[in-house]
C-alpha cells in the first residue's frame, strides 16, 4: 500500500529516530510512505479564534499536494495523508475539518491560494499512523512480530493532541485503547495508568520550563508507580519534554530514577526486527539500550 506522507519539521531534525523507525517498520508490513514532494510547516498549534482564517492556509496547502499526487498517479485513489507527529496530526485535522464543514471558509482559503494550480476540494483525510495500524489490524501486526517484546512493561502516553478535541481524537478521549492494543500486539505488557493523557507542558518548555519539570515528573512517577519500564509516545514535543527534561531532573537530583522514552515506532521496529540503525536509538536522550538488553530484546 502506498500512502502520501507528511513528515513535518521536527521529524527531519530532533525526531529523526521517529521518522526512520516508522518508515522502516511500515515497510516491513507492506506500507510505503510516499513523502509529499513539497510540504510546508503545519503551524504546530491550531488557531482557535474564529477570525484567523489565514492561519489555516499552511495546513491546506499540504492537502493540495495530496490531490496532485493522485492526479499524477504517484498514488492511486489514496485521499489519505498519513502523519507521525501527533501535533501535526491535530493541527492539520482541525484545519481540514474547518474546510470540510465550512464552504465559505474553503472558498476564501482557495482564493488566497490563487497561485496554486488547483483549488482544494476538501476530500483529503488526515490520518495518524496509529489509525492506519488499527485498520491494518493489531492481530495481523502481532502475526508479523518476529521478536515479541516479552516482559517489557510499557506505559502508553497519548498526551493531548492524539485525543483532543473530540472531533479529531483518534480514540475515546477519556478511555483510549489504541496504544495499549498496539503494545500488546508487539508482545509487550501494556500497563494501566492515570497520566496517559495528561499534558506534559507542551511549548512552555521554551520559556517556563518549571511547569514542564513538574508535569513530566508527575507523569513519570505515575508510570513508575504502576510498574512501567518505559514510556512510549507519538509526539516529538512530548518526547522532548519526557526525555530531555526528565534527564535534566535527574541532573539536578541524582537519586531520581529515570524511565527511558521511546517513540512507539522504535518498539515496533524492534519487534519486527528492522535494521538496528533504523531504530535510531542514538537520538534518545535517556539511555535506551540498557533496558532492552536486560530483557534480551537487543544484542
Amino acid at each position, binding site marked *: 500500500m502506498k500512502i502520501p506522507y507528511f513528515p513535518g519539521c521536527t521529524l527531519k531534525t530532533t525526531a529523526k529516530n521517529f521518522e526512520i523507525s516508522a518508515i522502516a517498520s511500515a515497510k516491513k508490513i507492506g506500507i510505503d510512505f510516499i513523502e509529499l514532494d513539497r510540504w510546508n510547516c503545519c503551524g504546530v498549534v491550531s488557531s482557535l479564534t474564529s477570525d484567523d482564517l489565514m492561519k489555516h492556509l499552511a495546513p491546506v496547502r499540504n492537502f493540495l499536494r495530496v490531490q496532485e499526487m493522485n492526479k499524477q498517479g504517484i498514488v492511486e485513489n489514496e485521499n489519505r495523508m498519513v502523519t507521525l507527529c501527533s501535533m501535526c496530526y491535530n493541527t492539520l485535522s482541525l484545519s481540514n475539518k474547518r474546510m470540510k464543514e465550512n464552504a465559505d471558509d474553503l472558498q476564501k482559503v482557495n482564493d488566497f491560494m490563487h497561485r496554486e494550480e488547483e483549488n482544494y476540494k476538501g476530500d483529503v483525510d488526515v490520518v495518524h499512523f496509529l489509525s492506519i495500524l488499527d485498520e491494518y489490524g493489531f492481530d495481523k501486526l502481532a502475526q508479523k512480530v518476529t521478536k515479541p517484546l516479552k516482559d517489557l512493561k510499557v506505559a502508553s502516553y497519548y498526551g493531548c493532541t492524539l485525543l483532543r478535541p473530540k472531533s479529531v481524537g483518534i480514540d475515546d478521549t*477519556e478511555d483510549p485503547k489504541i496504544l495499549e492494543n498496539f503494545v500488546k500486539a508487539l508482545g509487550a505488557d501494556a500497563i494501566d495508568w492515570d497520566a496517559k493523557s495528561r499534558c506534559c507542558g507542551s511549548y512552555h518548555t521554551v520559556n517556563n520550563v518549571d511547569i514542564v519539570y513538574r508535569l513530566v515528573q508527575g507523569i513519570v512517577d505515575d508510570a513508575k508507580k504502576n510498574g512501567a519500564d518505559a514510556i512510549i509516545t507519538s509526539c516529538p514535543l512530548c518526547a522532548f519534554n519526557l526525555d530531555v527534561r526528565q534527564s535534566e531532573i535527574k541532573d539536578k537530583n541524582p537519586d531520581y530514577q529515570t524511565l527511558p522514552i521511546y517513540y512507539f515506532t522504535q518498539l515496533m521496529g524492534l519487534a519486527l526486527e528492522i535494521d538496528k540503525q533504523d531504530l535510531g536509538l542514538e537520538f534518545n536522550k535517556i539511555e535506551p539500550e540498557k533496558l532492552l538488553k536486560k530483557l534480551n530484546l537487543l544484542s
Partner: protein
Amino acid sequence: MKTGIFLCECGGNISNTIDLENVKEHLNDEDEKVIVKIHGNMCSGAGQKLLIDEAKKHGLDKIVVSACSPHFHEKTFRGAMKKAGLNPYNLEIANLREHCSWIHKDIPKVATEKAKEIVDAAKAKAELDYALEEKMMKLGNEVLVIGGGIAGIQTSLDLADSGKNVTLIEKQPTLGGKMAILTKTFPTEDCAACIISPKMAAVIDHPNITLHTNTEIQDIAGHRLHFEAKVIKHPRYIKDSINMDQCLICNKCREVCPVSQPNYWEQGIMNREAIYIPAPHAIPYKYLIDAETCLHFVDGSCNKCAEVCPQNVIDFGQKAEELNIAVDAVVVATGFDIFDAKRKPVFGYGKYENVVTSLEMERIVDHIVEKDPPRKVGKRVAFVQCVGSRDKQIGNEYCSRVCCMYSIKLASLLKQAKPEIDIYIFYTDIRAFGKGYEEYYKRSQEMGIKFIRGKPSHFTEVKETKQVILTVEDTLSRDIIETEFDLVVLANGLELSKSSDIVADSLKLAKSDDGFFKEAHPKYKPVDTLVEGVFLSGTAQGPKDIPDTVAQASAAAARVMATLAQKEFALDPVLAFVNSDICDGCEKCLDNCPPKAISMNNEGKAEINEALCLGCGSCITSCPLEAIDLNYYTNKQIYAEIEASLHLKKENEKRILVFADNNTTYRLIDACGVRKMKYTNYARVLRVPSVSRISPNLIEFAFAKGADAVFLGDSPAKGSHFEWANKTTQNNIKTVLNKFKKLKIDSDRLIFSQFTAADLMKFINEINQVAEKIDKLKSIPEDIKKQLFPKEK
C-alpha cells in the same frame, strides 16, 4: 342527480372580495341539475335551515358549501345534512375564505376567477361522493399495563378497582421495579419496601388483575383502542399448580445449590444461588432458576436441587410460553434505567472498587446498621451529583430531578446510622423542589453533611488503600480540593429503560429530545400519547420521584377509564378498501401498511381490517392495478378535482396545484388565511389525508391538464400522524422525476416539503419561490404533456 351549491358571504369576509353573483352565474346550468343559493351566514341557524329546506324541496343528492375551512364547519354542515335526510359524506366544502378571499383582498377580479375553480373542484368531487356509514366499534374492558414498578402497580390497581380487566406484564420475576430496591424514601424516610409491599400483594390478590412476571413484550400490533400484544413468559423451571405437588418453599434446593451470583435486588453487594426467590418481599413469592448460571443448563453437571426437592416440582424441561393478549387500551409503565456510569470513564466506575452507583448505595445503606454489613463505607464519603444528567458530553442535557434528593436522603440515613462518618456532597445546583424537600435539605445540613459546590473533573485511585481521590474546584471559594475518600457515591441520572424500545418500536411511540416517551401535549395531555388508546405512567414519560409517579399513574388510569367509558366509538369511514375483482393477490401493498391493516384473505385477495386502517392512503401507490382505493378520496374523485381546478386556465395564466395533508399543511394554509398573509394566486389547494395518497399517475395527470407546478405538503416524518407516509411520497416523487428527466421537464416543478403547524412563513416563502420559478420557465409543450400522461381518463 342534483347538486345544491350554497355560497356563503360570511358577513362580507368572502363577498367583499369575491363577486358571488358572478360565481353563481358561472355555476348555473340550463338543465337545472344544479341549485345555487347565496346566503349571508351559512353556519348560522338560518343558513343551515336554507340548506335543509332546499335539499328537501329540490330533492338534492349532493351538497357543496362554499364558505370557510372545513376545519371550522364541516361538522356543522354534516349535521345539517343528517337533518335533511342526506348522508353526511355527500358534502364538500369549497374553502373560499381562508384559501381565496382573505389572501387575495387586493385582487378581487383574480380572486373571483379563482373562486370559480375552487367551487368547481368541490362540485366535481361532490358529484362522485357516495354514502359512507360510520361503523360503531365496541369498546371492551381490557387493559394491558406494561411494567410492574410502582407506576404500573398503581395504574393497575386503580383500573382494577374501577372494574377494568387488567393484564400486568413485568419482565423481572417479581413486581416492585426500582422502588423495591430502595432503602427508605425522601423526605419522610419511611421504608420503601414497607410502602410498596402491600401494593404488590394487592395486585396478586385482585380478582381483576392477571399478573405475568418473568414476561416480556415481543410485539404489539394495532392502535386506536384495539391492540394485540404478543408476550413471552419465560420459564421459572418450577412446576406451578394449585395441587398438592406445589413448592412448599422449604428452601432445601437453595441450600444445596453450588452457584453464587450477584443478586440484582441487592445490587450485587450480596450474592444469591442459581435457584432463588428474588427478594424477601418478592411478589409472587416463588422460586425460579436462573438458566444463565445454573450448572444444569451451563454444562449439565449439576442436578442437586431436583434431587433434594421433596415435592418434586423442579422441571428443567419447562419451556417459554407465548401468549396473545387482546386489549382496548395500553398503559406504558416501563420505567427507567440508571445511567451507566461506565459511559463516563473519568469517574472510574467498574474500575475503582470504591466508586458505587446510587442504587448500590441504597442497598449499602439498607444494611449499614447490621452487625457485620456486607459492605463497609469507611470514614469519609463523597456524593457526586449530576452523573449522566445535565451533561452534553454524554448526550443527556436534562436534569434527572430525583438525584439531589436521593443523595441527601442516602447521606442523611448514613449520617444518622454512623455519625462519625464525614460526608460531602459535590453538587452544581441543589434542586429541592417538592413538598418538604427544602426542609429535608436543611436538616441534612444541620446534621453536619457538607455541601460543596463543584463538579469533580476526574477520579484517581490510591493503589494501596483503594481510596478514591477527587479533584474538584470548590467554585464558591475557588479552592481546588484534592482529597481521598473511602467511598464515592455517584448520583446516576435516569434514562428511559432499554426494555422500553420494543414497546416504542411496535406501538410507534414518539420520544422527546431527552429520550423518554413523548406525551401528546406537555400541558393538557400529559399522560396521553399521540397513539390513541396508549397512555404513559411514571418515569417512562420522564424522570420523577415517587409521589409524582403515583399521581401520574393514577392519572393514566383515569384517562383509560374516561376513554373506555364511551363504550363504543364511531369509526371514521375514510378508510382504504380493496376492489377484489381487480386485486390479483400480488401482496405488494402489505409492505406499505405500517399499521398492518392489510392481510390476504382465503381467496388470496387483499383485505382491509377497518379497525386497524388509519386512512392514510399510502397503500394506494403500491398497487400496480389500482385495486386499492380510499373512501372519500377515491382516484376518480381526485382526477375530477384536478381537472376542475385547472379547467378555466387561460394561456398566460399559471397554476400551482397544492396537495396538502389534512392534519398539518391544510391547517397551516388555513392559518395563513386567517392572518391574511398574502401569497401567490397561482395556488389551488386540494385536501388529502396524506400526500402519500397522491400516486405518480395523479401528479402526471395534473401536469397534463395544465398545472405548471405541483406542490406536496405533508407533516414531518418524525412523530407525525402518518410518520411512514413520507417514504412513500418520496418514492412517488422519484418515479415522476425519472419521467421528467426523460422528457426534459424541469424538476423544480415538483416540490415536496414537510411542515409543522407553526411553519407559516416557510410555506409562504416556498410557495412564492415556486411561483417565481415557474414564471421564468416556458410552459410545458403539449406533445410532452401527452407523453407524460398518455391514457385519457
